């Protein structure tokens, strides 16, 4: 019996759940210290996520980019690389998607893949560049990708101000042509027929009419599965893992570690690229705007990957949790006036506890050892 419980305690899922629990506890403590009722805050946060179908759907929709950037970071982690450049790759992807989305106007069947692929490729190229700099010149990937993040940010602002793209009296570019939208039922829901239909179905109306209803989340889940298959089932994935865990042994086994570094960061960039492209095609107002600061989609991917313990499938769940927390945080400020930063603190604490609970399996093992040695005696 104790063995069974011990085994359960050792599962990564349980550890993560515990980290989230303790993170929430500490956040509650902080709320109390700052003079807000903890139970009220938790109720507000819970309601903010679960009280209406629209809210649930919004959490899911908003989780899509962080799941993808989380996958991007996790994939690099598995190969022993730290892709802190997911942010920049996300940004260049939004830039590329916006440009192709504005310049071209094909039938959706061509337009949508074109826009998404251009975004992915931009992210991939930026990631691959980091890989090339690392493997050819030995420059650490963290340094170059931080630089690239800033280059991407200012590139974005530059593109926004190009006359061809800039929408007058705004901070942003034109929206991409509607043929590139990946919104579902977009035409139908504003048509006569659609509006009449939705009037009789308040739940459907809530989720379809009032959100950027799309299927991008499902594609992100699919991508998570693909990443999992690549890492654990394929030859290349095996090479990536060996290179990540022991580059010396990888090299001596005939694995071209340097080439794999480039591949890995390219793929990692592609994944962040999907996140960027989906943001343009799937959420209004389908354009890029002048950035004064990072929007953190990429950096949040770091937290998502950390919470998931770099497991690709875990990224789906941790992305959802992450997005729910952010979403709830906004209403915390809105409803009871507590600073929404409290949620950021909470996320920080959760990530901290995730690192901390790695010790749990060790503790459990020690406990088991003691039990067994008592048995032997």
């Amino acid at each position, binding site marked *: 019996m104790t063995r069974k419980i011990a085994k359960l305690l050792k599962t990564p899922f349980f550890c993560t759940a515990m980290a989230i629990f303790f993170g929430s506890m500490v956040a509650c403590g902080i709320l109390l210290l700052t003079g807000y009722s903890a139970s009220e805050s938790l109720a507000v946060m819970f309601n903010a996520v679960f009280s209406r179908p629209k809210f649930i759907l919004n959490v899911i929709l908003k989780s899509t980019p962080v799941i993808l950037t989380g996958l991007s970071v996790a994939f690099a982690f598995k190969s022993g690389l730290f892709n802190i450049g997911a942010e920049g790759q996300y940004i260049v992807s939004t830039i590329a998607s916006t440009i192709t989305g504005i310049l071209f106007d094909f039938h959706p069947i061509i337009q949508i893949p074109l826009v998404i692929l251009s975004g992915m490729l931009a992210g991939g190229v930026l990631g691959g560049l980091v890989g090339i700099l690392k493997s050819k010149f030995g420059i650490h990937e963290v340094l170059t990708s931080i630089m690239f993040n800033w280059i991407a940010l200012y590139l974005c602002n530059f593109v926004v101000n190009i006359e061809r793209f800039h929408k007058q009296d705004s901070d942003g570019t034109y929206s991409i042509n509607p043929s590139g939208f990946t919104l579902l039922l977009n035409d139908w829901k504003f048509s006569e027929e659609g509006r009449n239909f939705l009037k009789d179905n308040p739940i459907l109306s809530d989720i379809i009419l009032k959100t950027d209803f799309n299927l991008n989340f499902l594609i992100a889940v699919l991508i998570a599965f693909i990443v999992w298959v690549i890492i654990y*089932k*394929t*030859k*290349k*994935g*095996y*090479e990536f*893992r*060996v290179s990540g*865990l*022991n580059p*010396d*042994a*990888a*090299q*001596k*086994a*005939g*694995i*071209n570690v340097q080439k794999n570094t480039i591949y890995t960061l390219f793929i990692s960039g592609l994944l962040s690229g999907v996140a960027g492209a989906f943001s343009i095609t799937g959420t209004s107002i389908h354009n890029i705007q002048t950035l004064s600061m990072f929007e953190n989609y990429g950096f949040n991917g770091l937290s998502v990957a950390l919470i998931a313990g770099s497991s690709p499938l875990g990224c789906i769940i941790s992305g959802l949790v992450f997005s729910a927390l952010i979403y709830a945080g906004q209403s915390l400020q809105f409803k009871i006036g507590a600073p929404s930063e409290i949620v950021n603190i909470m996320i920080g604490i959760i990530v901290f506890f995730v690192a901390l609970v790695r010790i749990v399996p060790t503790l459990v093992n020690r406990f*088991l*050892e003691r039990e*067994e*040695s008592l*048995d*032997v*005696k």
Partner: protein
Amino acid sequence: MEISKDYAVQMRGITKIFGNFKALDNVDLDVKKGETHAILGENGAGKSTLMNILYGLYEADAGEIYLNGERMEIKNPSCAIHSGIGMVHQHFMLIDKFTVMQNIILGNETTDKFGIINTRKAKKRVLEIMSRYGMKVDLKRRIRSISVGMQQKVEILKALYRGAEILILDEPTAVLTPYEVDELLEIIENLKKDGKTVIIITHKLKEIKKSSKECTIIRKGNFVDCVNVEKESEQSLAEKMVGRKVKLSVEKRPASPGDIVFEIKNLNVTCERGLESVKNLSMTLRRGEIYGLAGIEGNGQKELLEAIIGVRHVDSGKILMNGKEIQNKSTRYILDSKISVIHEDRHKDGCVLSMSVADNAILSKYRERKFCINGFLNYEERDKFTDQLIKNYDVRPIGCKNTKIRNLSGGNQQKLIIGREIANNPDLLIAVQPTRGLDVGAIEYVHKILINLRDQGKAVLLISLELDEILDLSDRIAVIYDGSIVGEFNQEKANENNVGLLMAGGKFNDAQNS
């Protein structure tokens, strides 16, 4: 034996249990003051565990420890250091980027009232210790730039600096050259003269004979015997250690060399510091022979190997495998030309510690059609292959396929790696220190495998710092010194004297006469 003041260390009924494994069962140890005492046992017999208990790294589940006749509780290493016990671990605990001096005083710095380290005072003491025991170490050098033998001296200095009266050396000769071993034995002699007590953990019989007066033998966690070394032969010590009759010398038929398989012609290689490490080196290997490359560490062996397997750039010269030029080709291409390597450092180069045994089993063959279909790994074949390796090479524990290879003992890791490489069916097997850190039983096994391979008409290039191993196994013996091969002998002509002379930089003509 009674508890008495004449004994520096006495341990009684020491028992230690890990999980459901009894590492030590009621073991006694008596070490006379001012003497060298050896602890002999195979890998995993529990000798290191016993010493780790004495040094306070582990707590015994039962048993007592007496120092100089007094009962002591040694809860942790700092407790042990206070009681005058020092330990030099098999894997050195030094900081690479610090200087020798900094490492010696680390954790025990003499400071002035402002908290600033007073090196002068410390240096005086270290110099005094060095001269007393005949040790020469350059205090200003950084650890990473000095040889392993030097690093060991630093560890000994560190222990003495902390006032050790009882010094535990864990497998001290495992990494040393013959010359360095002699130096160490001399240092031990000096320590003894000064009244210090030395405990040596080892499985090398020769050195026990040379260094120690008494020897405690442990087998599978049990106390076997405490013997007077002078009255025992190497053979009888080995039998007590292993628990059965063993062959200390290698048995093999004379070689029948065939065609040339592997050839190096006038090879030149530079190391990362820009120095010429391999100079105009040539060698020829034929099928059906073991070619031993003897030499002191740092004479170009590392660079030579790296050049052969395509990790290091070849400046000039040719490497031919089955008549095909392979210099400056990719490692993958070279390995696919039927070369396999057993690396010296199995943790660094030979396996991926945090992967499973099965994943490690396919490390050098995952690309083969059998294990990889259309880019996807074939887990079924992997498992089948691993089971076979485990069975054929007696890797223990038997059901270890899915455990991390980290949890296997060194000998079992090595068996798996050797099995894996031989399964590649190479025409040339390069074995670098293949028995490093293995016990007698495992060494016997590895040697048998290498000879078997030779008898099947393969070539074996044996690179080893252990002269005995080279002399016993090789059909031809070459000596590498300063990046060149300075002499080559047939096995019957080679002996410790002439090969040793060349290793130390002597002339070939002198060596032939000696």
